């Protein structure tokens, strides 16, 4: 194989301590980073650990650090990210490494719970369907953030998470913003109280790495700014 037909791939092997191991992978047109990792595991080293499920940008499980930036790998073409013929793959930042390219996502999801990033309603299945106008201002705000796939790319890209390990992170805060704008949710106060702190929306420094990296094109930074605004108004009204 000529140089142009081969990718030189460095892959993180090990846990917290480990090293980059070099592999040579045949290069193809329309090859995704996930294809590269799969090739390594199936043809070069079956002990390589990585995570994936859907392969089509829905499940959010295949994210890793590609040439220094967090990305979903199933829809990231090698052509767009390779540094010449070189590719460097490592686990997502800001999350504990289990093995190779697999991180422990527990902290990420625990923070969603801490942020009360879940729907709260006293309604039952006996109640009629809630009528929500899709063109209402509130619903439009919620719609902008609801397509999050929990891939943790924004969480890995955020420097504030690195500096303050208790910071809830962009994904959880974005989720809370959608709930605060959900007319059916009955506890806006509980959601707001959960994020009105330095570990919540007030800790954001507005670096907007979440906006730059979100593979779904969402804007958690706008949601966090909305939360700050809502928290400030609630505090002025004495509701917090």
């Amino acid at each position: 194989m000529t140089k142009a037909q081969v990718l030189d791939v460095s892959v993180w092997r090990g846990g917290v301590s480990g090293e980059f191991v070099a592999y040579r992978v045949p290069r193809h047109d329309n090859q995704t980073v996930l294809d590269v990792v799969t090739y390594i595991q199936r043809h070069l080293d079956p002990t390589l650990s990585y995570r994936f499920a859907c392969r089509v940008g829905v499940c959010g499980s295949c994210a890793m650090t590609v040439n220094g930036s967090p990305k979903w790998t199933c829809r990231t073409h090698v052509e767009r990210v390779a540094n010449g013929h070189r590719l460097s793959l490592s686990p997502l930042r800001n999350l504990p490494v289990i093995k190779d390219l697999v991180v422990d996502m527990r902290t990420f999801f625990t923070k969603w719970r801490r942020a009360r990033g879940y729907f709260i309603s006293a309604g039952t299945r006996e109640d009629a369907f809630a009528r929500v106008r899709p063109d209402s201002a509130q619903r439009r705000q919620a719609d902008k953030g609801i397509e999050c796939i929990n891939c943790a790319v924004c969480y890995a890209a955020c420097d504030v998470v690195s500096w303050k390990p208790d910071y809830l992170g962009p994904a959880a805060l974005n989720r809370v913003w959608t709930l605060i704008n959900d007319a059916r949710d009955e506890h806006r106060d509980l959601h707001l109280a959960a994020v009105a702190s330095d570990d919540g929306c007030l800790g954001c420094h507005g670096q907007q790495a979440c906006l730059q990296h979100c593979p779904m094109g969402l804007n958690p930074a706008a949601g966090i700014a909305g939360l700050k605004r809502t928290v400030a108004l609630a505090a002025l009204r004495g509701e917090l």
Partner: protein
Amino acid sequence: MRRHSSYWAFAVHRASGLLLGIFLPIHLWVLSTIITGASDSSGSLDWANNPWVKFGEGGVAMLLAAHLTGGLRLLAIEFLPWGDWQKTAIAVACGVSLMIALSYLLRAF
């Protein structure tokens, strides 16, 4: 990962804040010693007339302006509806800061 304008805006805001935090106590201390007559005021004023010190003061004016405009940008992001004017706001903040620093230097010389 950090190669985007919003990160640079954050970095400038943070660095200018820290540098001003160092400068302002020194500045206030010099002023107080002059006002209370604790030091030879003419000596301090001579020192302040040094061109390099004037350039330094221009830099401080720039830091102050950058911190002020960066802070206004943050307030706009957080209290106004989100818009596509983010990069414009950063460019305006840079332009205004530079203009203030140059105006200071023009007046100082």
